[in-house]
Every structure is written in C-alpha cells, then in structure tokens.
C-alpha cells in the first residue's frame, strides 16, 4: 500500500483529502504545517506528499528546501495542492521540484487524475 502525507493547515481539507485518498487505497498520514511534515518524513518517508503552500510555522516552499537538505533515503513524489493558481506560482513550484500541482478547490477526479500522473495509482 502506498503512503501519502497530507500537509495542510486546514483540518477540513485534510479530512476531505484523507477520505478520498483512502478510497483510492492509499495509507494516509497528516501534518498541519511544514515543520510537522518534515518530522513525519524523518520518521518514515511517504511515497507521495500532498503539499499546501501557505501554512503557519513553515510554508510548503520552505518545507521543500528543508526536505532537500534532509537527504532522505528516497525522494517522495511532491504534489502541490494550493489556492495559489497563477502561472508564476506554478512555475516556481515546478522549479523547486514539484512533480504535480493541484489548484484548489479539488474534487475526487482531480486528486485521482494527479495521483495517476505521479504513478501512485
């Protein structure tokens, strides 16, 4: 079973995402900000990370940088999932190493399609 770490400061979004991801047969863990996410990754590297951009304590972008410095045994797939939906943000995310990008709001089809694109289902 593939594992997905859902990183979002909104409990509601995490809950919705978890629900969808579990029906897609992924095992889900949650983190409320970049720092928590980093701790979770050091514990066990997930297969894919669903990553919000704007979060308190540590943003999605800062998390990506920290993740690179952490030298994990393997690289998780990164799927940004954010309300930032301008071209400039999307380009910056790709440059920072994101594999895919979801513009919120998302639905089941969006999540399923993007996870397919990164080879998780």
């Amino acid at each position, binding site marked *: 079973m593939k594992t997905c770490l859902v990183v979002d400061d909104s409990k509601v979004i995490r809950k919705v995402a978890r629900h969808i991801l579990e029906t897609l047969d992924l095992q889900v863990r949650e983190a409320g900000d970049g720092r928590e996410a980093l701790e979770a990754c050091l514990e066990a590297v997930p297969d894919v990370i669903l990553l919000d951009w704007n979060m308190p304590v540590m943003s999605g972008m800062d998390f990506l940088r920290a993740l690179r410095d952490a030298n994990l045994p393997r690289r998780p797939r990164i799927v940004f999932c954010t309300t930032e*939906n301008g071209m400039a943000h999307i380009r910056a995310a*790709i440059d920072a190493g994101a594999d895919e990008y979801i513009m919120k709001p998302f639905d089941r*089809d969006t999540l399923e*399609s993007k996870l397919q694109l990164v080879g998780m289902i």
Partner: protein
Amino acid sequence: MVQSASSGQSLAVLSALLEARTGQQIASHRSTRVDTVLLPLMRERRIETLDQLVYAVLDGRDPHLAGRVIDALVNGETSFFRDRHVFDNIVEVVTEVERAGRRARIWSAGCSTGQEPLSLAMIFAERQETHGTPMPEIVATDVSEAAIARARSGSYTQFEVQRGLPIRQMVRWFEGRPGNEWVARPELLRHIAFRQMNLTIDPAPGGSFDVVLCRNVMLYFAPEPKKRAFHTIAGAMRPTGLLILGAGETVMGQTDLFQLASAGRGMYQKSDMGDPAPRA
C-alpha cells in the same frame, strides 16, 4: 418549479429526437438523468415541465431549441490523455507512416470539447520540437455544435484542465485567464481542424486517415446507426489504418468491416469486408 416526474410520452419524443439526430438511444435507466441534464436549459427558457419543453420543441417556433436539447442530452464526458497507453500506440503508427515518407492523418471522431485532439496536438508538437518530425494533420468532429464551439475556443475550466493533463504540459500549452479559465495557445489549436459532423448521417471528412479515434461515442447508438457509422469510418480509412474505440467497446457482433488489430486491446483494422480487394 420543475416537476420531477416526466411523462412517458415526453420521454418518448425526446428519445426519438435524440435518435434521429445522433443515432443514440436513451436507455430507460437513464430517464432520471434526462430531467437533470435538461434543467438548466428549461430554467433559461422559463419552461416548467418536460412536457412543456417537448411542446416547445415540436411547435418549432424556436429553431435552435431542438439543437440545444440534443447538446444537453449527449454525454460529453472526456479528459486529456484519456487511457494514456492509446497515445503511445498512435505515436507508433504515425512513426510508421513517416517512415513511408508520408504525413500522417488522424481523425478524432466524437471529440466532444476537444481534449482528445488537443492531447494529440501536444504530443506531436513536442515531438516536432525534439525530433524535427512533421506535424500530422488532425481533424476533429462532433455532432454537438456546443461541443465543437467550445473545442474551437480551446477554453477549459480549472477542473477540466486538471483532468489527465500533466502540469508541465499545462504550463507549456495553456494560458491562464481571469475567472479560473485556461485557454489552449493558438499555436496548438491551429494544428486541429474542427468541424461539426454527425457520424450516422454526414459524409466523413475528405481524404483517408491513418488513425481514427472514435472512443466512447457509439456506446448508446442503436444498431442501424452504428452500422452506418462504422461504414462511414471504414470508408475514410487507409487500408492499413487503425481504428481506436473506447476501453469498454468492441466491434464484435456490431460490424464485420473491422477486426481486432495486432496493436492490442481496443484497436481495430479493416477486415477484408471493410476493404475489399479490387476485382480483376
């Protein structure tokens, strides 16, 4: 308020209209859907019941109404790069054609809002950049005026642009507009010739094709219109051409013009019946 119970007679009229215009049948289990999909049109025209809508269509004072009803009734569900492996097969066929020194021709029949031909255009435009290969000719048709108009505009909602389309290709080939609208770049759109066409009635686009995609289009066709559509497609294909149907579709028991191609599941080539050898 719109009444949810639709009379059997009205359904019968709508069903006959749909079949006459598209060859499609309304399966009885979909009758609840009929109310739902027609609701927005009925609201717009201030029509309250399905019966009234049918009267309005039949009295013919609004010549566009029947077309609008058809547009609403046909299922236009689609996405970018639907069944991805299919596109690898098409690249193989096109490569073969290029080896033979020709420019390939592809027909997307039943293209809905254009995601299928645009996926093809992206693949081959990128291949042109990296390999210097020629762009195949892409023709895209659909019976629905509304679908073809949207396909031509290349404009997609945020939801549509996130179904099947890798983010790098979205960045490369689409422009963001205010209101979460994403529009395919003109240099991509110009590779596709869009045309309104009814597969069960109209003649095929001119010339012959190396690849015809007719995916998830004929699922609800009645037997006779289906036969006619296969006939039209066979007539528009080169002897070595490939017909691609949707993942759950088959020619088995539907037509003897086609047979399974060696290329794999969902791929068909003309049989001897579909491409009779010239007689001496």
